[in-house]
């Protein structure tokens, strides 16, 4: 028998590839895309590597390791679910680390194979990589993935949802920046800018309190009560004793009772009241979001 070392049996497509490829090919035919026009061949390998770096578990599927891919997928889904469930808590962070490790391990497996193929193509010797180099590569991949995840969370947190630590525990906030959707009495998260009014220093950050009045509402302060459109309620801490106002069209009234702690009181109550009123009339541009009513079965502030 001649040269048994020659590979004489062609590569075969797996089940999933057979399933989705006809759709992709039909789409290409309809649109008139040529593979060579889409991505230049010299960067195709690198682009694929980048895609495998960004999409978790995809590298393991690409390698055709179906059992491992199932385990990796299961592990990743478990970790992500755990992270979402306990978002903002230390346990959630541990789950996120788990997801990061599964993602990184899948990519490192693929990277090893990709690198070997590259060496064979460039006709360079495929030597065993030393342990130090492997550890360094692993660490580098984890750091890079950490940066990718951090960038993703930074980009998402004020656009979709994010955790907020309050005195009552972690609250998961849904991004909402429109005054039109707010209701009286609803909890709202808003931005407080660092500012100074007379002798009152206000530190910046996020505040979370109830919406008292919406644009156009008439608010009256009188002694120990305040009234919104004639509906009286007990006055909140440091509210003005006298006065009235009509909420401007692009603002809502959120008294920062829960959000601010007054450290010392060497200034008059009236000055504090005026300073707090500056914060309390929240413009639409400073709105951040509202808490979800429940988060994975956990009842939140309503």
């Amino acid at each position, binding site marked *: *028998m*001649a*040269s*048994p070392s*020659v590979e*004489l*049996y*062609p*590569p*075969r*497509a797996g089940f999933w*590839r*057979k399933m989705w*490829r*006809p759709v*992709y*090919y*039909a*789409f*290409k*035919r309809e649109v*008139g*895309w*040529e*593979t*060579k026009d889409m991505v230049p061949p010299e960067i195709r390998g690198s682009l694929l590597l980048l895609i495998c770096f960004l999409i978790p578990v995809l590298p393991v599927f690409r390698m055709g390791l179906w059992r491992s891919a199932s385990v990796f997928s299961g592990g990743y889904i478990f970790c992500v679910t755990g992270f979402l469930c306990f978002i903002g808590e230390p346990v959630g962070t541990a789950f996120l680390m788990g997801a990061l490790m599964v993602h990184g391990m899948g990519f490192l497996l693929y990277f090893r194979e990709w690198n070997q193929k590259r060496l064979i193509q460039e006709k360079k010797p495929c030597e065993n990589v030393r342990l130090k180099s492997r550890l360094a590569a692993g660490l580098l991949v984890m750091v890079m993935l950490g940066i990718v995840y951090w960038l993703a969370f930074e980009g998402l947190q004020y656009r979709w949802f994010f955790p907020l630590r309050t005195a009552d525990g972690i609250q998961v906030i849904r991004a909402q920046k429109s005054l039109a959707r707010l209701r009286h009495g609803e909890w709202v998260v808003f931005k407080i800018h660092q500012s100074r009014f007379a002798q009152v220093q206000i530190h910046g950050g996020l505040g979370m309190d109830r919406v008292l009045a919406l644009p156009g509402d008439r608010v009256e302060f009188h002694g120990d009560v305040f009234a919104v459109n004639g509906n009286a309620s007990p006055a909140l801490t440091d509210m003005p004793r006298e006065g009235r106002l009509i909420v401007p069209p692009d603002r809502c009234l959120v008294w920062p009772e829960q959000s601010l702690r007054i450290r010392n009181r060497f200034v008059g109550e009236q000055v504090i009241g005026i300073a707090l009123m500056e914060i309390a009339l929240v413009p639409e541009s400073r709105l951040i979001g509202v808490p979800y009513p429940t988060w994975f079965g956990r009842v939140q502030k309503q």
Partner: protein
Amino acid sequence: MSRFNNLEFGDSLGDGQEQNPVLKDENYYLNEAHRFYEQGDFEQGLRAYSKVLEYNPENSVAWTAQVKMLIELGEFREAKVWADKALERFPHEPELLAAKGVALCRMGDLKTAMAFSDAAIEERGDTAYVWIARGDVQLARREKHADFCFNKAMERAGRSWFVPWLISRVYSHYLKFALALQTIQKALEWDAGQAVVWFQAGRCQQAMGLVGHAEYSYEQAAQLNPRLMALQEARRQLQETDFWTRWRGWWRSTFNS
């Protein structure tokens, strides 16, 4: 039946062939491979062509046929990869160039596919397969010259049922079942003793809603070769055809023919 029957030991291929005194060489496996191809058993055909290459890695027919098998199995990307590998050895093989063209056009790379088809013709490729492949590319590009290419292939067929069968399969791939049926009827005229031809006719009839005709065709195929690949599955699908499809097929066959 032993649970080890499907394992390949040494040169054995299939059941009970250890007792066969026939010399198992390159020609033996090549004939076996052609037989599998003509029976529509592309998986076994692929294996048998690999066996041929174990005996002679320079057999260009086997390399080309492997690419054809992968195309018939719907694994176009693998067919392209394998064609590239084969073209490193046989850069001027017309059928190989044509087969790569088919793989590319089925993947949607229509311009490159045409270039390979042109190259196959330029290499004095005047075989039926080269013209079938060109017709395949033309069909994918929705050009009108596909019929011309298939007619050219039929001229080279020499009353062989195999060529119209292949053409019919190409038409089926592009969902042109009426043309596929018309072509396979030519194959039936030339040789009605081939199970795969009846099976292909049945597939076209089934796709067109001619359920009664399809049942008849499958029945003929089953009589000729009860072990034909995919026949059981096709018959099961036919059994599950709903009432309206059957009624539409009956209407067509009664009033349109």
